């Protein structure tokens, strides 16, 4: 997919640290300004500006026909977006919270993912489905699911998740520009993470489908994405004291999967831990570990380990810190990579 420069914000974000939420809003704003076919659709996205304010100001700037408050019905939101895309628009739909997206799953699996295929290429659907996902914000149940495995298991979808402010802008622009449906997972606990996002020097982000090495190292590779990236970077810093020089790979895109970057890293380091907060059983880590095993078997010094959320329904907020993989759990896994010493 296309490489998108993180381009100059016009006024309000200039010369200030920007949050991920602001970068996402800017991406939608610039996409709407560049292409009249781009339409925002969802519950509360208009007057309120979204419950996370990610669409703030878009209805005021572009009108309610371009940024539309819909009835509260996720299947209807995504289903009507299908029809809009069939007529040449580029809908960007918001699924307010991860677990609220489930009613739309039939539309997603039966139509969004398959329309290009069903019609022998005649009817591609350029729909971006924004899903704020993951925990760590103290939300009550149904507000913190990590549902990426469901989407990954559905051929025909792209599944991506930014972990930096630059990626939030660049990847959302690329998702909206894509002629294929993109499930755009927004790690909601990073919405308020900030970065100096220089308007004068646009940052070019890797295209969707490419992973990025966020930190180089030689002892082992942490393979991660989205909300767990900050955990892994912190763990890598902490591991230096133990003599571990960890490499951190930010996948950015779960589908398509960048085997090349992951394999190159693991072959260099010989050890790998996959880190994500969605549950481990049947989760993304199993697929990633299998791919690494198939391609790096002779390079591995230890089994590929997974650090994931427990195999439980997402816990209540007062217990979520016990469920979410934190720095200590990652470091424990890294310690277990001393395989030859133990065996």
């Amino acid at each position: 997919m296309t490489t998108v420069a993180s381009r100059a914000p016009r006024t309000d974000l200039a010369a200030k640290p920007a949050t991920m939420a602001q970068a996402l809003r800017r991406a939608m704003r610039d996409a709407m300004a560049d292409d009249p076919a781009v339409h925002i659709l969802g519950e509360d996205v208009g007057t309120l500006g979204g419950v996370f304010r990610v669409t703030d100001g878009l209805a005021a700037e572009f009108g309610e026909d371009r940024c539309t408050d819909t009835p509260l019905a996720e299947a209807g939101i995504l289903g009507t977006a299908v029809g809009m895309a069939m007529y040449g628009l580029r809908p960007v739909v918001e699924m307010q919270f991860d677990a609220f997206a489930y009613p739309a799953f039939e539309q997603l699996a039966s139509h969004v993912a398959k329309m290009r295929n069903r019609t022998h290429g005649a009817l591609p659907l350029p729909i971006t489905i924004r899903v704020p996902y993951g925990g760590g914000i103290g939300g009550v149940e149904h507000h913190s699911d990590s549902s990426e495995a469901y989407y990954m298991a559905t051929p025909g979808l792209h599944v991506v998740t930014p972990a930096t402010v630059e990626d939030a802008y660049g990847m959302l622009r690329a998702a909206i520009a894509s002629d294929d449906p993109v499930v755009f997972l927004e790690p909601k606990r990073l919405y308020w993470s900030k970065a100096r996002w220089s308007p004068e020097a646009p940052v070019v982000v890797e295209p969707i489908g490419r992973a990025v090495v966020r930190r180089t190292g030689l002892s082992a590779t942490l393979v991660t994405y989205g909300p767990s990236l900050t955990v892994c970077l912190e763990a890598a810093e902490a591991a230096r004291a133990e003599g571990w020089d960890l490499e951190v790979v930010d996948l950015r895109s779960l589908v398509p999967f960048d085997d090349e970057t992951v394999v190159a890293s693991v072959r260099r380091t010989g050890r790998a831990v996959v880190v994500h907060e969605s549950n481990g059983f049947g989760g993304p880590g199993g697929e990633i570990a299998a791919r690494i095993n198939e391609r790096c078997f002779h390079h591995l010094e230890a089994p590929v380990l997974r650090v994931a959320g427990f195999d439980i329904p997402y816990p209540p907020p007062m217990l979520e810190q016990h469920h979410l993989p934190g720095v200590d759990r990652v470091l424990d896994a890294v310690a277990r990579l001393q395989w030859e010493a133990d065996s």
Partner: protein
Amino acid sequence: MEEVHALKKSSTTVQEPPGPVVHRPTPPPAWQPRTDPAPLLPDPEPYRVLGTEAVTDADPELLRRLYAELVRGRRFNAQATALTKQGRLAVYPSSTGQEACEVAAALVLQEQDWLFPSYRDTLAVVARGLDPVQALTLLRGDWHTGYDPREHRIAPLATPLATQLPHAVGLAHAARLKGDDVVALALVGDGGTSEGDFHEALNFAAVWKAPVVFFVQNNGFAISVPLAKQTAAPSLAHKAVGYGMPGRLVDGNDAPAVHAVLTEAVRRARSGGGPTLVEAVTYRIEAHTNADDATRYRGDGEVEAWRAHDPVRLLEHELTERGMLDGDGIRKAADDADAMAARLRDRMNAEPELDPMDLFAHVYAEQTAQLREQAAQLRAELDASDEPADAGQGEAR
């Protein structure tokens, strides 16, 4: 005001004897009626043209065209059913008995309008002008959709129930936003009205005043489940009222009646009046598909009663009685239909040309690395096999 004053007075003037207790009712909610339901309600009896004075107002050309299309449709259903027995179609959900609905749905639309069919609506798609072989691609099994939906303005035949309805709403809404004169006509069965997507589509359409017509062909059964177990509504058309759109009830075996009601609904949508829900009362004469045994859930008597109200015979009777059709006309319609069926049979007997590499061609705009690897694997398997790789005849079954 007086009461408030009186209370105030009694509380401040201690010397006076207390007056009578004044009851102040709690105020009603800040509520206003939103719309008058009466114009939205369907008539209690299905609208009819045949056998009524309304026939005299009908356009004779339209009546003759409807008849010719009904006869062709009936013949098409018979031929397609025969093709399933020969293994040429994987499955065929017959619309025998429902031809009036199918034909009218196609004929009320203008060229720029869109049709959103379900899996049973092959006849509507063909009556709209699509090549029958392209229309049967899904049921034959050589691909899912055999035509370019945008070229013909026909959405793919939809198998999951009612999921095509929100698509129709979104498309009609998008067209209106662009200022285009486009109406979407979405077809659904009685079973489909129980699905959540039916509800969400009607709700969105009414709120957005989208130029959509929802056309329910109530043929009595969702596979084996009769309408009485499907809904407790007075009629399916009554469901419209809850969304704030008109509901209309029509005799689904009366072709000119269906045509008239749908024409009015399409006109209303086109002129900015918003969506309409039309329920056609009809009957599925055949089983759900050739894989179904209808004798397990319904009696012969019921089927025979509906055969007496057959859409082809009803129109034929009316036209003959009024001197608009004679034996020659009937024979000509039958001959034309036979010729159509013969052409269809010949073309369906030709083996489709399949390219196995198509499996990977239309998943994404640009193949992922994973799919490129898998495509290479299949290519190698094909090259290693005895079969010529690009012919692949007969591999589908």
